[in-house]
């Protein structure tokens, strides 16, 4: 039992980790170490994320009915490079818990949890849009905030900020080509008379 700012919690994050270890004795769980890791964070195997998510949601003691957010994380040049972070929230226990799943460097992919929490649909689309992480089995894995024909994954660390060409109709593949008469226009040469 913990008391924070006058609010009492009966369930603790330590107990959540203990329950997960009891339920999945063969899975490789690892708590994230670090003095300034302010929220209890547990690394879970990526392949088993759907099982773990379903357990967290359906277990009557834990009751993590809400998925708060999903985020990608690029740790270039470390390996494994990509991480997907899930922050789950139990309304009845008033508790947050963070899960992390590490992914391979090449073609990072992880099963979708959109079947467990419907809200994951857009979160996963956003993570795909920014990091290029594939969520296998996702019902509609398309770009959500960037244009459909955008090249690259902007929140990866090897994607630069700035210096890109501004996307117009004439330099974006798949857009309508400008009329030929406009492309033929060239700036007029200006001759300066010698003094």
């Amino acid at each position, binding site marked *: 039992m913990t008391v924070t700012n006058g*609010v009492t919690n009966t369930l603790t994050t330590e107990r959540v980790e203990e329950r997960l270890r009891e339920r999945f004795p063969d899975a490789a769980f690892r708590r994230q170490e*670090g003095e*300034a*890791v302010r929220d209890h964070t547990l690394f879970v195997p990526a392949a088993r994320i759907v099982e773990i998510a379903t357990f967290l949601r359906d277990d009557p003691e834990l009751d993590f009915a809400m998925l708060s*957010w999903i985020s990608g994380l690029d740790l270039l040049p470390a390996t494994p490079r990509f991480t997907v972070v899930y*922050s789950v929230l139990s309304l009845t226990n008033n508790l947050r818990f963070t899960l992390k799943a590490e992914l391979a460097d090449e073609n990072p992919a992880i099963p979708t949890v959109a079947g467990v929490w*419907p809200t994951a649909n857009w979160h996963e689309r956003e993570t795909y849009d920014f990091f290029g992480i594939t969520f296998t089995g996702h019902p509609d894995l398309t770009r959500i905030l960037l244009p459909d024909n955008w090249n690259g994954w*902007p929140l990866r660390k090897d994607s630069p900020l700035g210096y890109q060409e501004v996307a117009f109709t004439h330099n974006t593949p798949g857009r309508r080509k400008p009329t030929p008469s406009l492309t033929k226009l060239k700036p007029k040469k200006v001759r300066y008379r010698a003094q």
Partner: protein
Amino acid sequence: MTLNMGPQHPSTHGVLRVALELDGETVLAAKPIMGYLHTGMEKQAEYKTYTQSIPQTDRMDYLAPMSNNLALVLAAEKLVGITAPARAQAIRVLLCELTRISAHCVWLGTHALDIGAMTVFFYCFREREKVLSIYDHVCGARMTASYIRVGGLAMDLPDGFLDRCQTFVDEMPAHIDEYEKLLTKNPIWLARTQGVAPLTAKQAIGLGATGPTLRGSGVDWDLRKKQPYCDYETYDFDVQLGRSGGDAFDRYQVRIGEMRQSVRIARQAVQRLREMGEHGEYRLRDFKYVLPPKDEVRTSMEALIHHFKIVAHGFFPPVGEAYQAIEAPKGELGFWFVSDGTPRPWRMKVRSPSFINLQSLPTMVEGRLVADVITAIGSLDIVLGEIDR
């Protein structure tokens, strides 16, 4: 038939586009399409110090700048491990509750305008203007406030500020009565909102909806009560809940009730600030993270060094991660920082409530009429700047 609603349609509150699949007037499927205002704030934050990201947040939910500032600052404070002094927290609470009133005023005005009640719009914008003048008085900007800083505030309160807030909170309940007189028993308003765009509690939780959208569905979840920040546990207020199954009218009543509760909290905050003194401590004296007062910079060598260090390259947080959420006018607004020990965050994730609440739009409108889509969008209270970030 496929009907394209937006992105330039006025009732989509910005540049939201909804692709509607229709059978006559009945909506078979609705697909929100967004990203027209995407400016890559999360990417830009990786190239800025924590303080430099504060002005970015003003442009997210541009109707509630103070709440956005506060969410970022609280996340950074949690990462660093510091807390602002009590007087600064009271000022933050006061400003955030005024922000909630003004954001709900804009919501009510535009929502009513969508449905066809024009008078409410003018009434609401009259009161919103007063809040914007209060912002102007306290920080010099009407919309892009950037007033809250890591460890406290940018500057102390100006003279006569508390009297001005007192006048506002004294007048506001009568204005909320005016809005209610126009709408709450108006048969047209009731016909357009009651039973329209329903969202059950189970659906709302599954879809991750927060704020008035979740409370409208009858779920007692308010971060100010459940996970208090800025000493909210010491203020006296009630959480508003919807009572008739989570329709648009429920969300209307929840927000109207919240405006009254915000007035109540703001009044308590003004009272508390009067007791603490109109001028006083507004920033933490931890000069590794917080700028020293200007007077000391002019007289003390040490303060000057701290000032120079923080201005030149920002403060150095420890290596770690922190997530902190607040109850913004739209719902749970949270920031997640990953720090590698340098003055710039390695990753900043924004959990924006409008983005996630909008996901419940298809559930609300599928199988219903086209006209109800407009009510549903209005009752969700979205801001596209925050959705697209």
